[in-house]
């Protein structure tokens, strides 16, 4: 089957489905009719997408943690705690790293070890191993909508089980869950596999069950310029919409500069809607998510609270529809439930203090929005061009050509030639665009901004500057200056 950005036919979809559902014994429990019935039995407040759309209308920012442990009851206890003691508006189910690599046997070992050691030996919940009924018990026990968050290149079985299990939101995409999350997986394959997941979402949608889809915004979380992650988010949104997805949340990982971050979130929502309309997807609901700083965190908890707070402030001031919350344990390890709830309460305080304030219409922000939008259009339009009108094909070629190029990505498909660095105000700019097709004007703008910093620091812009910026927030700064 050739890769094309075209809604899968029933034959294409159901032809593969059989095989997918036999990849692990729990696949046998997937029954679409029963799944739809289960979804329809849920009260509206438990629907993720509906809660998002309501929040967007009311200008609210919802808070959501990340969380997942190996065993089901422990996972339910964890989520209940985050809901009740953390005040989470939306809940996650983070999936463990073996499942993400379809290594269900290793996940099984992790489950057994976790039972034996009475502590979670996995960094998330192995949804596939636990199966459909386990998922439903999670959904039933909580009063809050729950999303599956993972990082799985081939998530087809996981998606089937998650949707049948009653989850109403699902993170990921063929690019965003490949390039930052895999070493050597073909992009043709992941885009196709995610067409499957998106088509499944569409099939539920057609049966009256609304499931929210969230392309994974922050990518490597490490000095990603907004135009890069925005391009990926827009491409994945368009690919999803083609398969019938109707409720999309586009995401962005905080960079740290107030003006750039507020502008980025505003631009992200606008651009996604613009492109969806332009390509004929008129009835897709678009919401936005800000991820609190996704790079290396400071180890000290007091300092970590500061980073968490700043991300919360950005989320509120930009009116992101939701914010994904870090914890004071971030630099050390998977957080305890207490630390996770602390991150949530810290975030909520900030959101509630700032929810009536706005910055998005100041001239600084408007200028920056124009820059981000122009940069993003250069890239996305080039991807269409490379694909000769087909976005799926274009995306594959764009990575080959380094037109899409994600800093520090583990994938061999990624050129890794584009170099980002902070400018003198801490905004993330492009030091060396390599093959990222920005216009000459925009390249010059980026260079000038970094040159300004280089002069202030009396050194040349170089890879050392990039390294300094990788460490900076974890060392208590935003800009990695050479001096103490």
């Amino acid at each position, binding site marked *: 089957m050739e890769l094309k950005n075209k809604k899968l036919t029933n034959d294409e979809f159901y032809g593969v489905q059989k095989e997918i559902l036999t990849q692990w014994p729990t696949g046998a429990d997937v029954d679409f009719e029963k799944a739809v019935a289960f979804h329809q039995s849920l009260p509206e407040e438990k629907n993720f997408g509906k809660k998002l759309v309501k929040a967007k209308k009311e200008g609210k920012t919802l808070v959501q943690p990340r969380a997942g442990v190996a065993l089901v009851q422990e996972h339910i206890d964890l989520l209940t705690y985050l809901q009740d003691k953390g005040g989470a508006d939306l809940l996650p189910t983070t999936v463990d790293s073996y499942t993400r690599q379809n290594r269900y046997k290793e996940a099984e070992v992790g489950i057994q070890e976790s039972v034996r050691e009475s502590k979670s030996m996995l960094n998330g919940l192995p949804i596939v191993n636990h199966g459909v009924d386990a998922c439903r018990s999670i959904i039933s026990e909580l009063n809050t909508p729950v999303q599956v968050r993972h*990082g799985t290149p081939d998530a087809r079985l996981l998606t089937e089980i998650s949707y049948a299990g009653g989850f109403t939101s699902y993170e990921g995409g063929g690019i965003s869950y490949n390039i930052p999350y895999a070493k050597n997986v073909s992009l043709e394959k992941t885009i196709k596999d995610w067409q499957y997941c998106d088509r499944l979402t569409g099939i539920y949608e057609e049966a009256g069950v609304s499931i929210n889809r969230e392309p994974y915004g922050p990518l490597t979380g490490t000095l990603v310029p907004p135009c890069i992650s925005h391009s990926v988010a827009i491409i994945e949104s368009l690919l999803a919409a083609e398969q019938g997805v109707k409720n999309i949340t586009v995401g962005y990982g905080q960079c740290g500069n107030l003006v750039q971050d507020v502008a980025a979130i505003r631009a992200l929502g606008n651009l996604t809607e613009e492109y969806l309309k332009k390509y004929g997807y008129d009835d897709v609901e678009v919401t936005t998510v800000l991820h609190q700083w996704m790079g290396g965190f400071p*180890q000290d908890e007091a300092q970590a609270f500061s980073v968490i707070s700043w991300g919360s402030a950005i989320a509120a001031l930009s009116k992101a529809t939701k914010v994904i919350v870090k914890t004071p344990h971030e630099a050390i390890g998977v957080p*305890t439930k207490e630390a996770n709830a602390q991150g949530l309460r810290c975030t909520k305080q900030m959101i509630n203090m700032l929810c009536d304030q706005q910055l998005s219409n100041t001239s600084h922000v408007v200028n920056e929005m124009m820059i981000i939008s122009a940069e993003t259009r250069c890239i996305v339009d080039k991807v269409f061009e490379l694909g000769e009108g087909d976005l799926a094909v274009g995306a594959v070629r764009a990575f080959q050509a380094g037109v899409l190029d994600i800093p520090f990505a583990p994938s061999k498909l990624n050129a890794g030639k584009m170099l980002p660095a902070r400018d003198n105000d801490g905004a993330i700019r492009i030091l060396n665009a390599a093959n990222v097709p920005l216009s000459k004007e925009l390249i010059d703008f980026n260079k000038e901004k970094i040159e300004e910093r280089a002069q202030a620091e009396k050194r040349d812009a170089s890879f050392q500057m990039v390294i300094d910026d990788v460490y900076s927030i974890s060392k208590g700064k935003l800009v990695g200056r050479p001096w103490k």
Partner: protein
Amino acid sequence: MEENKKKLVIGVIGADVHAVGIQILNHAFEEAGFDVTNLGVMVSQEEYIAAAVETDADAIMVSSLYGHGELDCRGLREKCNEAGLTDILLYVGGNIVVGKQPFDEVEARFKKMGFNRVFGPGTAPEETISALREDFGL
């Protein structure tokens, strides 16, 4: 390549894709005068050993960030011995267990598994480099 350079095999073990630290370690170890074979992310025990045998390496530096380090590292020392790498130095570092745990307990567990040195979260490259120099008597 100079003859007397000490040889390191580095990589991120298991299903772990955290790619930033290993790139920076690669850079830092080379700057410090080591001969580095960087296997990147998602490295299996077998791959480390094959690379170490092939390059006649002096040390294997195992990086693990994502929390499954304890499951992934079990048996590595034994496999090294089987492959005849009986003297090779084994270091492990990163966020090698799930969650915030007392470092001395974690260290003891990994030393029992046969690692020569164990490093906690966010260890600076300089610290690792001086440990290497000490162990190599440089």
